[in-house]
C-alpha cells in the first residue's frame, strides 16, 4: 500500500514550490543602503475582534497580532526559526530534563514603571499557562513549580522530562508573560487589564474602541536600544474582506495579516507595485487542510474506503486551480516548513487514481448500485476560510465520480465545533489543522486516543491505535532531539497508513503589506512578533 505520489506529481509540486519561492523573493529586495527612519503610523487590518487581548491566557493569532507588540514572551524565533531570547537571556536543562532554568533579562520594566522579575514568570506560568491558556494547559500539565532563587532566575520543575527543544519551540506562542502586580488579586479572566494590556514590549497600549480600532504608541523606555522605529500602530476593525482590500488600496491600511483578504484580492494586490503579497514571515503559522473521518460510520471504519476517498480526489488540480501560489501539496500532519521535524515524502501517500479508488470500494464490498451510487456521506466544512468552502465542494464533486454522494452541511464556528468534536454528528469533516512549530503542541492531539469529548481539534473520530499512542507518548518525553525527530517520522508513517485524518494540502498564511514597510516578514512568526525593528520608508 506504500505509494509514492512523487512520480505523478513531481512536476506540479516543483511548479508550486517555485511559485512560492518567487513570492518569497519580493520582500528580500535589498534596501540595505536605506537608513532606517524613525516615526510613522502603521495601520493594520484587524478582522475578528477577540473577547480579550492577553496572550498569556489565550493563544491565537487574533491576540498576538495586537498584544505581541505590547507584551513579550520568554523566547521568540529568529530568522532561521531557531529560538532566540527575548525576556529570557539564556536557558539550560538538567540531564534528566525535569528542571529547566531560565536566566532573565535585567533592567526590563513594565509599561507602568514596575520592574520585570522572576516573580512575574512564576505567577504567569503557574496561574495562566498551566490553568487557563489553551494549549498551554496541556504543555505545562506536568509543571509542578517555578522556583525563583533571585529576581533574574526562574527554575521550571517538571514531574516528567520536558524536552528543551519542545519547550523552546512552544514558548514563542505559549510563553507570554503578564505582570504579577496587575493580576494577583481577583479573577484573572475578568481582570480589566485583559482589555488594556500592560507589558514590557516596544509599544504601549493607548486605547481600545470596540468595533472600531486599537491604538498603541512607541514605548520610549523599551529595553532594546534605538527601538522601536514606529510612532504608533493602529489596528482597524474591518469585518468585510473586500472592504479591507479597498482600504489598503486607499492607503488607509498598510498591512493585512494572516490571509485576511479574499484569495483573488491577495493575488491581485500581489501584482500591484504598491504592495507585497507573500507567505514569508508566516512559516511558523503553517496549517494543513484536513479530511476527518468518523469511524462510527461502518463504511468509513474500513481502511479501504478511507484510502479510496483519498485516491478519488485530485489534489494538485484543486491547488492549481483554486488556491494558486499560496498553497502546496501536503504530505501529512507535519508540514514541510517544520525543518526540525519534517519527515519528507517517504511516508504512505495517496495520489489521484480514480480507477484504484473504485477498485478499493468494490473490494470493501460497496458495489455501485443503480445510477452508480454506492453510499452517501454528510460532510461538515469548517467556516474558517474561503479555501475550506471551495475544498468541500471539490470533495463533493470528486466523490460523486466514484459513486459516493456527499451532502454538505454548513455551520458557523460554534456550530461546527459542537457538531464535530462534541456531538460527533458528521461522517466527513474538513477544516484546518494548525501546526505550532512542534508536533507535541497541537498536532498529536489529533491522533492520540483518550481525548475528552468536546475538546475541539482533537481525536474525536472514534479511532484508537495503541501503536500510534505509544509513539506519541515516547516522543513527548524524549530528550534527544535526533531521536525525537525519528519518532515523529515514525508517527507520520503510522498515521498516513491508517489515515484517520488525511492532510493533503499545506498552506501558509499570506501577508499583504505596503511596499514601504521595511524589516517586515523577517521571522517565521512575524505577524505575531513585536515589530521592534519595523520601519516605514518615505
Amino acid at each position, binding site marked *: 500500500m506504500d505509494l509514492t505520489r512523487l512520480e505523478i506529481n513531481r512536476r506540479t509540486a516543483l511548479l508550486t514550490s517555485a511559485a512560492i519561492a518567487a513570492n518569497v523573493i519580493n520582500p528580500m529586495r535589498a534596501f540595505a543602503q536605506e537608513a532606517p527612519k524613525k516615526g510613522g503610523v502603521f495601520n493594520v487590518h484587524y478582522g475578528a475582534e477577540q*473577547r480579550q487581548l492577553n496572550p498569556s491566557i489565550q493563544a491565537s*493569532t487574533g491576540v498576538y497580532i495586537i498584544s505581541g507588540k505590547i507584551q513579550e514572551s520568554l523566547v521568540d524565533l529568529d530568522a532561521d526559526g531557531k529560538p532566540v531570547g527575548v525576556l529570557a537571556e539564556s536557558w539550560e536543562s538538567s540531564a534528566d530534563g525535569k528542571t529547566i532554568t531560565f536566566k532573565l533579562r535585567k533592567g526590563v520594566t513594565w509599561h507602568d514603571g514596575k520592574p520585570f522579575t522572576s516573580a512575574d514568570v512564576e505567577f504567569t506560568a503557574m496561574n495562566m499557562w498551566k490553568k487557563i491558556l*489553551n494549549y498551554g494547559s496541556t504543555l505545562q500539565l506536568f509543571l509542578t513549580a517555578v522556583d525563583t532563587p533571585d529576581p533574574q532566575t526562574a527554575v521550571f520543575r517538571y514531574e516528567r522530562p520536558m524536552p528543551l527543544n519542545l519547550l523552546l519551540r512552544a514558548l514563542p506562542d505559549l510563553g507570554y508573560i503578564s505582570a504579577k502586580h496587575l493580576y494577583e488579586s481577583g479573577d484573572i479572566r475578568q481582570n480589566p487589564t485583559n482589555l488594556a494590556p500592560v507589558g514590557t514590549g516596544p509599544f504601549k497600549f493607548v486605547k481600545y474602541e470596540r468595533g472600531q480600532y486599537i491604538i498603541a504608541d512607541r514605548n520610549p523606555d523599551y529595553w532594546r536600544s534605538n527601538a522601536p522605529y514606529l510612532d504608533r500602530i493602529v489596528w482597524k476593525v474591518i469585518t468585510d474582506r473586500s472592504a479591507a482590500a479597498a482600504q489598503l488600496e486607499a492607503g*488607509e491600511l498598510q498591512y493585512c495579516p494572516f490571509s485576511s483578504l479574499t484569495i483573488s484580492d491577495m493575488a491581485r494586490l500581489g501584482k500591484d507595485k504598491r504592495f507585497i503579497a507573500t507567505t514569508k514571515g508566516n512559516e511558523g503559522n503553517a496549517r494543513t487542510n484536513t479530511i476527518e473521518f468518523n469511524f462510527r460510520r461502518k463504511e468509513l471504519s474500513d481502511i479501504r474506503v478511507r484510502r479510496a476517498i483519498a485516491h478519488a480526489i485530485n489534489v494538485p488540480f484543486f491547488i492549481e486551480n483554486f488556491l494558486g501560489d499560496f498553497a502546496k501539496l501536503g504530505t501529512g500532519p507535519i508540514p514541510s516548513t517544520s525543518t526540525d521535524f519534517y519527515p519528507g515524502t517517504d511516508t504512505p501517500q495517496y495520489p489521484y487514481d480514480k480507477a484504484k479508488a473504485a477498485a478499493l470500494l468494490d473490494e470493501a464490498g460497496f458495489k455501485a448500485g443503480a445510477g452508480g451510487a454506492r453510499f452517501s456521506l454528510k460532510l461538515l466544512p469548517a467556516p474558517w476560510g474561503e479555501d475550506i468552502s471551495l475544498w468541500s465542494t471539490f470533495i463533493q464533486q470528486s466523490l460523486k465520480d466514484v459513486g459516493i454522494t456527499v451532502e454538505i452541511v454548513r455551520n458557523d*464556528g*460554534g456550530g461546527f465545533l*459542537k457538531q464535530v468534536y462534541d*456531538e460527533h454528528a458528521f461522517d466527513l469533516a474538513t477544516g484546518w489543522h494548525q501546526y505550532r512549530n512542534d508536533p507535541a503542541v497541537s498536532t498529536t492531539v489529533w491522533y492520540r486516543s483518550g481525548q475528552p469529548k468536546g475538546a475541539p*481539534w482533537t481525536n474525536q473520530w472514534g479511532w484508537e491505535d495503541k501503536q500510534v499512542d505509544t509513539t506519541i507518548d515516547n516522543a513527548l518525553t524524549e530528550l534527544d532531539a535526533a531521536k525525537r525527530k525519528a519518532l515523529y517520522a515514525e508517527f507520520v508513517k503510522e498515521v498516513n497508513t491508517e489515515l484517520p485524518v488525511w492532510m493533503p494540502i499545506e498552506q501558509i498564511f499570506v501577508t499583504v503589506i505596503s511596499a514601504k514597510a521595511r524589516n517586515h516578514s523577517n521571522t517565521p512568526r512575524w505577524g505575531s512578533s513585536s515589530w521592534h525593528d519595523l520601519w516605514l520608508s518615505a
Partner: protein
Amino acid sequence: MRILSLAGRRLAASIPTLFLILIGVFLLLQFAPGDTVDALMAQMGGGDAATARDLRKFYGLDLSLPAQLANYLWRLVQLDLGFSSIYGKPVATVILERLPPTILLMTASLSFAFFFGLVFGVIASRAVNKWPDTLISTLGLIFYATPSFWFGLMAIVVFSIYLQWLPAGGFEDIGQVQSGFWRVLDIARHLILPTLTLGLIFLAIYLRIMRASMLEVLNLDYVRTARAKGLDETRVVMGHVLRNALLPMVTLIGLQAGTMLGGSVVVESVFSLPGLGRLAYESVIQRDLNTLLGIVFVSALLVITVNFVVDLLYARLDPRISAEG
C-alpha cells in the same frame, strides 16, 4: 389628545409582544448548535475540556434552560439587560456605545430617501410617461435591484481609491483627535458613502410610492375643483395634492424603520461602522445570548417609538384621523 391615548394604548399592547419576541429569540438561539464557549473555542483555535467546563460555569451556562430563561426575564423586569460575554461588560453599556452610529446612519439615510423620493416622485408624476418620468423610474429600478454591498464597494472604489475624496471606512478619523464642530464635520464626511448606499435602495421605493400616490390624488374631484377655481398648478400641487399624497409615505417610514436596522448589517460591515447591525451579527456568531436579546429589545423599542411618532404625524397630516379615533 384622542390620538395620544390611542397611541398610548398601542404602546401598552406592544409590551406582551416584546416579551414574546424575546422568549422566541431565546428559544431559537437554543436550536443553533453550540454555545458561546464553543464559539470562543473556535475563536481561540483550541482549548482543553477542563477549560471549556470552567468557562461554561463562568458564563452561567451550567444552569438548565428554563432556569436561564427565568433568570433572564427576571432581570429584564428589573430593567437589567445582563452581561455580555463577548464584551465583558453590561449589555446596556455595549448597546449604548453602538447606538449613536446606527441612529445617525438610519436617520440620515431615511431623511435622504424620504426627501429625494418625495422630490423625484413629484417630478415623475408631473411628467408622467415623458422623459423625466422614464429616467427617474429607470434609475429607481436600477437602485432597487442593485445589492447594497456592491453599491458600497463600488462607491469606495470610485470615491476613495480613484478620486480620494472621501474616507473608505470607519466612523471618524483616528489619526488626529478632533473636537466640536470639526469632529461633527469629520463624522459627516465618513457617513456620506454609507448614507448614500443605504439610502438609495429606499429612495427607489419612496419615489415609486410617491409617484403612484400623487397620480392617484391628482385625479380626485377636489383637485379638479382647485384647478377650476383658478389656482395655478404649483399651488394645486403644494397646497392640496402633496399633503394627501404624503400619507402612504409616512406609513412606509414606520414600517421601514425596522428594516433599516437590519439592512445596515451589510452597510456597517462594508464601511466598518461600529453599529448595532454588526453587533447583532457578531453576537449570533458568538452565541452571546444576552447581547442579542438586548439588541432585539432595543430595536423593538426603536420601532415602537418610530411608529408612535408616525401615529402623531398622521394626525397632523390628516385631521380626520384624530377626530374619528
